[in-house]
């Protein structure tokens, strides 16, 4: 056969054309097989992928919610801002969740309720009254009874997105309002329930309508085709893609119910852009545009949403309210024409005024500095994939009002203290940490003077020498040893010390002067270096290093004498941990940014409860705090006292490092601990001390935050005794005409040389009086 063919073709070349019908036939056969295989493959793919369809859901990060109760620290303006952040709509009459009506110092609102990790907060309509910075009234609208406590919804501060940037709120099939389904079908695919995924009649109708109008006014794609396109195909407009889309739509219709397809469409469709976040699905769109759950929307609002898939940007009701209203009315007209609504319903909905939530159009840079801390805390328990895809809810400790106040203050405050430098383009930089003085919750963070800065996070990463901020650890170790009290006399005299490596160490006071004999508390208040070295060497450098680790410093510290003056590096957050322990009276509570993690449905997964550990003796901490309050009254922070008149007493400490490269201040009141660092990334001089730089910025911020004055409870074994105002080492030199009353622990009373408490007989006091003359 083969041979004969060869011969034939060799002999009769004129008959060559006869081969092509046969090859064509084969080619067609092969083509049919290929198309059939393609169909089978598409069918397989659709069945596999659609039945396993799961939305990749971003993790949502929430700030600490506002809690309302009589006496709560909150003013009307901030509270109204908070409600707007939550997308509450201002109305003259509050009838639904998510509405508020502010009137001067009163606000009526209805909360939406929220599924917190520790239980569900119900929706409630309340009247809130404010008296300056405090809540003075909290009353239920229904019944008018006083309500002890209301927790609002938390602000969502960030999302950890899937790579696509898509965000959605999936809802159950039974939660979708019927009117929405009707509206979508009326406007997008009126023969949805009768076609098989592709609708030739619909295509023909669209074709005619478009020819008549001279432009594209209708699309011929069914909802099924749109879903397939969004889920599985790219945007290219080729014939092959169109065929693929039609085949997939058919396959989908063969294997899945109309209800499944519609449900997937309603959750999938793209309905708007919010910064870097793509708003998908009607449930999220309802929240985004109206600030309310889908189930609570009225017909006109549902119709507006149903009109969005055609042009989410064009018909965006926040940006283009007129076009959005026109489009809404087209949807309503279609619904009326197809019998989904009555003429009365149509008229009523068409007349409804457009009322969208006044969300900030851009979510801005968010909270990158705080989010770094959240991510690093979460990294202990969650991998990146779980955070991006599983729709976790993460409850954090951030206080959005406080964060806003810090950001609003910081840049101009730093600019006010910055020294002009020649030819140095990089400005002075800053970091701020604000924590709750009791719990260690991180309430605000700044890693740069610019808000929203996403570069080097100085709050977490700038590891700098802390200078005199270390001194409280030295003095606390001394008080705890039992060998020192606030009236112990220290020598603020020149020191020259040979170190182990043979170097000579000759520390100096900041002003290069010496004060001779000084009281313990005075040396701390005035931050005297030489007296501190005198004290620290007597206490033992290793005990000071140990105290630092007890207060919360986790790195290993080599016990060199130079640590007594702060030659130890810490980040601002690490400093805040140490001062938080002091503010808690010697109880260390690890700083925390994340409180709990739940699934998207609210099931608790992880809880990071408050911890506390007593690491220092309360009496010693109390005595130390006397001196740290003295820093404001008599010491290095005295310059800030006039501005803080309503806030004092407060406790704090300035810190300056060599050649004023770092300017620090750390301090606390009853409610807050604040740490401020100023410096340059390249470590050059700032020309600022702790007092001329960081203290001023700290004061600006704390006035803005209305820090509460410090009122510490003296432990039982504390008593007050008078000592001579001037320190002396021998009783003969003592002058009890000028005294100061200081707290002492019962077992460690002042040395008789300085004590003016019940000292000696009447005659001795008389002699004191003569000495005074």
């Amino acid at each position, binding site marked *: 056969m083969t041979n004969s063919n060869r011969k034939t073709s060799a002999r009769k070349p004129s008959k060559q054309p006869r081969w092509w019908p046969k090859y064509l036939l084969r080619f067609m056969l092969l083509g049919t097989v290929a198309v059939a295989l393609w169909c089978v493959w598409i069918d397989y793919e659709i069945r596999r992928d659609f039945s396993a369809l799961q939305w990749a859901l971003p993790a949502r990060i929430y700030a600490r919610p506002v809690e309302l109760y009589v006496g709560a620290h909150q003013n009307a303006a901030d509270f109204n801002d908070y409600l707007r952040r939550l997308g509450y709509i201002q109305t003259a009459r509050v009838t639904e969740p998510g509405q508020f009506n502010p009137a001067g110092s009163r606000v009526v609102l209805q909360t939406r309720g929220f599924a917190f990790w520790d239980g569900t907060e119900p929706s409630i309509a309340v009247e809130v009254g404010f008296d300056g910075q405090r809540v003075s009234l909290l009353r239920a609208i229904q019944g008018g009874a*006083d309500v002890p406590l209301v927790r609002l919804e938390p602000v969502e501060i960030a999302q950890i997105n899937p790579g696509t940037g898509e965000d959605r709120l999936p809802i159950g099939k039974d939660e979708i309002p019927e009117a929405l389904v009707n509206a979508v079908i009326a406007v997008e695919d009126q023969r949805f329930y009768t076609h098989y995924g592709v609708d030739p009649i619909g295509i023909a109708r669209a074709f005619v309508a478009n020819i008549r109008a001279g432009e594209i006014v209708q699309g011929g794609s069914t909802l099924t085709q749109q879903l397939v396109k969004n889920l599985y195909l790219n945007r290219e407009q080729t014939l092959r893609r169109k065929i693929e889309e039609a085949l997939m739509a058919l396959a989908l219709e063969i294997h899945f119910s109309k209800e499944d397809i519609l449900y997937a469409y309603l959750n999938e469709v793209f309905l708007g852009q919010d910064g870097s976040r793509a708003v998908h699905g009607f449930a999220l769109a309802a929240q985004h545009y109206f600030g309310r759950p889908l189930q609570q929307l009225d017909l006109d609002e549902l119709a507006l949403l149903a009109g969005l898939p055609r042009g989410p940007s064009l018909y965006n009701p926040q940006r283009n309210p007129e076009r959005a209203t026109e489009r809404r009315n087209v949807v309503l007209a279609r619904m009326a024409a197809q019998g989904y609504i009555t003429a009365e319903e149509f008229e009523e909905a068409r007349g409804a005024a457009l009322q969208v939530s006044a969300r900030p159009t851009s979510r801005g840079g968010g909270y990158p500095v705080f989010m770094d801390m959240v991510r690093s805390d979460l990294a202990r328990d969650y991998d990146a994939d779980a955070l991006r895809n599983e729709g976790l809810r993460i409850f954090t400790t951030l206080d959005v009002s406080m964060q806003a106040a810090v950001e609003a203050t910081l840049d101009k405050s730093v600019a006010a203290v910055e020294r002009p430098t020649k030819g140095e383009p990089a400005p002075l930089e800053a970091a701020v940490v604000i924590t709750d*003085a009791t719990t260690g919750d991180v309430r605000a963070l700044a890693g740069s003077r610019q808000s929203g800065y996403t570069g080097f996070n100085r709050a977490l990463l700038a590891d700098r020498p802390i200078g005199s901020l270390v001194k409280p650890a030295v003095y606390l170790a001394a008080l705890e040893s039992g060998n020192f009290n606030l009236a112990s006399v220290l020598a603020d005299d020149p020191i020259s010390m040979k170190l182990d490596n043979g170097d000579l160490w000759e520390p100096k006071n900041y002003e290069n002067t010496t004060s001779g004999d000084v009281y313990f508390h005075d040396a701390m208040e005035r931050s005297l270096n030489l007296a501190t070295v005198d004290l620290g060497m007597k206490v033992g450098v290793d005990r000071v290093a140990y105290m630092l680790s007890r207060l919360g410093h986790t790195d290993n510290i080599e016990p060199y004498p130079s640590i007594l003056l702060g030659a130890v590096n810490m980040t601002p957050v690490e400093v805040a941990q140490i001062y938080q322990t002091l503010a808690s009276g010697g109880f260390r509570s690890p700083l925390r940014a994340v409180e709990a993690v739940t699934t998207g449905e609210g099931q608790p997964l992880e809880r990071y409860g408050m911890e*506390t550990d007593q690491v220092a003796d309360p009496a010693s901490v109390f005595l130390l705090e006397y001196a740290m309050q003295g820093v404001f009254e008599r010491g290095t922070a005295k310059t800030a006292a006039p501005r803080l008149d309503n806030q004092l007493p407060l406790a704090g400490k300035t810190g300056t490092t060599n050649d004023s490269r770092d300017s620090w201040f750390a301090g606390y009141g009853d409610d807050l601990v604040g740490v401020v660092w100023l410096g340059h990334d390249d470590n050059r001089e700032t020309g600022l001390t702790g007092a001329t730089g960081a203290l001023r910025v700290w004061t600006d911020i704390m006035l803005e935050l209305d820090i509460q004055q410090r009122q510490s*409870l003296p432990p039982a074994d504390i008593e007050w005794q*008078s000592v001579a105002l001037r320190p002396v080492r021998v009783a003969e030199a003592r002058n009890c*005409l000028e*005294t100061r*009353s200081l707290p002492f622990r019962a077992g460690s009373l002042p040395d008789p040389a300085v004590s003016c408490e019940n000292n000696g007989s009447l005659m001795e006091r008389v002699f004191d009086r003569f000495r005074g003359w």
Partner: protein
Amino acid sequence: MMKSVWLILILGLLTACTGNMGRGIPAPVESRGQVIRTPPSVPVQPPVVGRVIEPIVESPARPVEVMPPATQSTPEPIRPSNPTSPVSALMASVDTAVAAGQLEQAAALCERALRISPRDGYVWFRLASVRFQQQRYADADGFARRALSFAGSDRGLVQATDSLLAQIAVAQRSR
């Protein structure tokens, strides 16, 4: 001679005034031409802080709660109760959560109460006892010690906390 006696007497009276005028109320002193207010900035006991730990007043006594392990129980100090105060409302929810065995939720409610009233020794005590029931003894110990630091002269709270601390110590030793 009489003049000298008078001088000594007057001087004696004057000096008696200068040194110490009684605990906590020292006389003002002068130094470097500047008046120094010597009453220390740290308040003298008892302090007045936002939420004062009030003395125990008559209020309906709550039944003493039995905590697991069943053999151990801690006397529950009675917190002065005001139904409209947020902390009282939260403490009532704590009781409900504990009764329902939802101890982590109870702890969370205590933490909420502490954010409102950080110096309320009763709340610290309650948090300590919840952690004790959860057998988280190190945390229980820390919270109980903080309760003590805010107990002041409230003998009922001090006794209850001391007793809880003793139970914690026993439980920790038997681990």
